């Protein structure tokens, strides 16, 4: 089920992005966070506990909303705009975990 609920501004052109390989429908001007949480409940798995995470501050301060490009670049989902054809993954590609870089 979706986490976020759209309350307006729905008259925008649709864009399709790919999250973990699956298509996700979003609207032009959505942040990645809104794109992902309008279609699903969470963004990623916490590395320090059993729970899934869905961001916290929406203003670039908590870093709870990280997702990655397929080539491994980190993106802050709350401050990155979703783009058509964009491909993101919700766990970090590769092994090492830069905890607090």
């Amino acid at each position, binding site marked *: 089920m979706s986490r976020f609920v759209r*309350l307006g501004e729905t008259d925008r052109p649709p864009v399709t992005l790919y999250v973990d390989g699956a298509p996700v429908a979003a609207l032009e001007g*959505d942040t990645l966070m809104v794109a992902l949480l309008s279609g699903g409940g969470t963004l990623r798995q*916490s590395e320090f*506990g059993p729970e899934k995470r*869905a961001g916290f501050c929406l203003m*670039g301060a*908590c870093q709870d909303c990280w997702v990655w490009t397929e080539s491994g670049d980190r993106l802050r989902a709350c401050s990155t705009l979703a783009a058509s054809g964009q491909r993101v993954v919700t766990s970090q590609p590769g092994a090492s975990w830069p905890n607090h*870089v």
Partner: protein
Amino acid sequence: MAEPRIIIVGAGPSGTRAAEACVAAGLRPIVIDEGRRDGGQIYRRQPDNFTRPYRKLYGTEAGRAQALHETFDGLKGAIDYRPETLVWNIAKGHVWTASATVQEAIPFDALLLCTGATDRLMPVKGWQFAGAYSLGGAQVALKSQAVSIGHRVVFMGSGPLLYLVASQYVEAGAEVAAVLDTSPFGARLKALPDLLAMPSVLWNGVALTRTLKRAGVMVQHGVTPVEIMGDAESGVGGVRFFAGSGREETIACDAVAMGHHLRPETQLADLARCAFAFDPGTRQWLPERDDDGRSSVAGVYLAGDGAKILGARSAEASGRLAALGDLGLPVDKGEMTSLRSEVGQYARFARGLAKAFPWPARQAPALPDDAILCRCEGVTAGDLRAVMRETGAQEANRAKAFSRVGMGRCQGRYCGLAAAELIAAEAGVPVEQVGRLRGQAPVKPLPIAIGDGQ
């Protein structure tokens, strides 16, 4: 003499007014902001292709929002504006910036820090679950993306933003399950003399409560949060709390917006080596400054909510003051005096707010051992207590080094103040004796391509 190199960090109300004063004096400041657009927090701008009018986005502050945006738009040709650029360090007379691809060290003669605020959080057991958001975050969702953080939202915490954001949600058509305020209603009556410093703002606050009442939203005062219920997979399922009467209650919801007013973003002031002093009214350490925004370091100025939480209108006045003080140009003494007295009024109002919506310091030591204190790395209240027992650490930075509380990705922005209260209570010392977490570079994680090269 060559033109002084002026850098303004922040393009919110305070940074915008500071830039305006510089430009009027014939200077061309560099204005750096991490955001995609100017406006800062309260006057945050929606993406270009959104169409909601000012009135809908900013309510009673629509006129001020529009005036500020128009001022900034008008300045664009006259300033060196660098959006989507993070200032991540200040050292050796340089501001260190990073954008997606470029890293730079820029020298300055005068530095104006207009960095604004983030939510002040008191952890509640279960706040790590998906669907728990900061109050400010809940507002950003609505303001800049036209979404609600959930299908049924509980607002829990205290402060003016609690009522403001809840009523903005109601007006936008979201379902608000309840507003649970930790401060007792009586506190507001005691604060009234100070709150009357700004009658119109006080009146706006009263109107918000009426909006909530009319919409039939349950509003409770004097509550003590117990737990955000939920599970690891699906996230938030409800809240459990003690009502003012002492009775335990639960409310089902799939989202919680939580916060206790705000805390200033002071990391850059710290890196610039500004002196800090403890503010007993808000139980926070704040960078010292004089009436015109001069910090303890020559050439470094502090304005807006990044120095002390005095609100948006004060941010405009203090931004202008900080720019005017030392430009070495003829200034209107009368204007300076009236700006100072304006800021003084806001300071009195802010004292009233601190009394009306007190920070619930005692909730921190009351956290059960299994409650998560640091959301970043899942460190519990019990982990911090164990570290204190084993190492005797009673100072914030020592306790941080041993427990990792405050060492996660948010750098203690969301757990630091509560951790200090917990340490103080366990050690039986006043919270100011625990000290404060130091701001460290980089103040936020750098874009990955640059961070890997560090």
